[in-house]
């Protein structure tokens, strides 16, 4: 899996499952890891949020609504042209 190899510019999304002060426990593909929230302190991260983690630090929050928006657009394009909803 991608996150097992270490790439310097790689960041992986993880779900926050616990927060204690500045340190969060995040779940990345079923594995729990510790991540610092120091660089995202102003983003109001809550348990359940997705964050991108790079070298042990969360660098940003991942907005699921934005992701849904792009997908929705493309689902619409496909439905319009193919006459049926694609299977996800």
């Amino acid at each position, binding site marked *: 899996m991608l996150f097992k190899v270490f*790439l310097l*510019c790689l960041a992986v999304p993880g779900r926050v499952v616990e927060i204690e002060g500045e340190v969060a426990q995040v779940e990345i*593909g079923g594995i729990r890891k510790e991540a610092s929230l120091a660089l995202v*302190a102003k983003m109001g991260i809550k348990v359940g949020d997705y964050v991108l983690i790079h*070298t*042990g630090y969360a*660098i940003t929050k991942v*907005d699921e609504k934005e992701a849904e928006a792009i997908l929705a657009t493309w689902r619409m394009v*496909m439905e319009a042209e193919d006459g049926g909803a694609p299977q996800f």
Partner: protein
Amino acid sequence: MSRGGQGILASFRDRALVGKVAKEIAAAAKGNPCRIMHVCGTHEWAITHAGLRGMLPEGVEVVAGPGCPVCVTPGGEIDALAELACGRAAVTTFGDVVRVPGRRTSLARAMADGGDVRVVYGMSDAIRMAGREPGKEFVHFSIGFETTAPMAALEVGRGLPANLSVFSTHKLIPPAMEFLLRAGIEVDGFICPGHVSTIIGADAYRGLAERYRKPMVVAGFEPLDVMLGILEIVRQKRAGEAAVSNMYGRAVSGRGNEAAVEAMEKVFEIADTEWRGIGRIPGSGLRLRGEYAASDAAVRFGMGEAAADSMPAGCGCGDVLLGRIRPEGCALFGKACRPESPIGPCMVSLEGTCSIAYKYREKF
């Protein structure tokens, strides 16, 4: 329908959707050839791993630029850190760096000779190690673009253990893009690096788009993300536009992570710096400000600036990093130079273009 984050990612890999975008690209590219550059090792991985080049129509080409921080780290710096590790300090660094050949030696060679080199996952490991062994000097060899520099900045700003200092070879991506554009490289638009952009924000590319009249598209790393980024560049070129477009809104905002940028500005100042295989790029490096000299390994150990540097003899990494050739265009690729016996940094680093091309070569 509600979906978890991983569920959404699965949709971004959906072959039908990706194929649909490929068709749109083909339509937009008719009579409108496009040469696109990305500047990120993870983009190269994503593109090659998913075989996206094979889905692009004739006339649309995606080349890798200098997106591998380890590959552009001067060999002289690697030598200097390897020497430090042999007696003066324990050197902590990222795993990718260890095997990269410097000019005379490497960190792996230093380890074999009994030097103290320790692979860490991040800055906090280095802090923990230094805390556990207060009698020993530690130097963190801090490499990376804007994605990695904030961690070093944050920790230096907060104060490091007295026996830990940082050797910063951090580099900035937009000045490198500008350098390539000024040099007149043949490119119609850039896929801007997704994770760098989470920090500096999509707005950071506005000046480049305007000055050089090229589309600058921030994209994520799933196949659909990359294909949508390519489509946007082809579409902009067709329409005669040259705008910044953020196709990675789920992680990147216009202004980026302002706290991270503030941390960097507090601790680092911008300097000209040497990119291995490319040359000196104005305003593209980060060195610690004078106030933080106590945390600066270059000061503590009296290390000079990196000299002009080249790749090992016969290695085409310089041309690979500038998008002039694909790895297959290097005479040594897959022959003398392979992951188990690498000659240049682009084959050593897991995000080097040659290493990625070799690993996934069966896809071509």
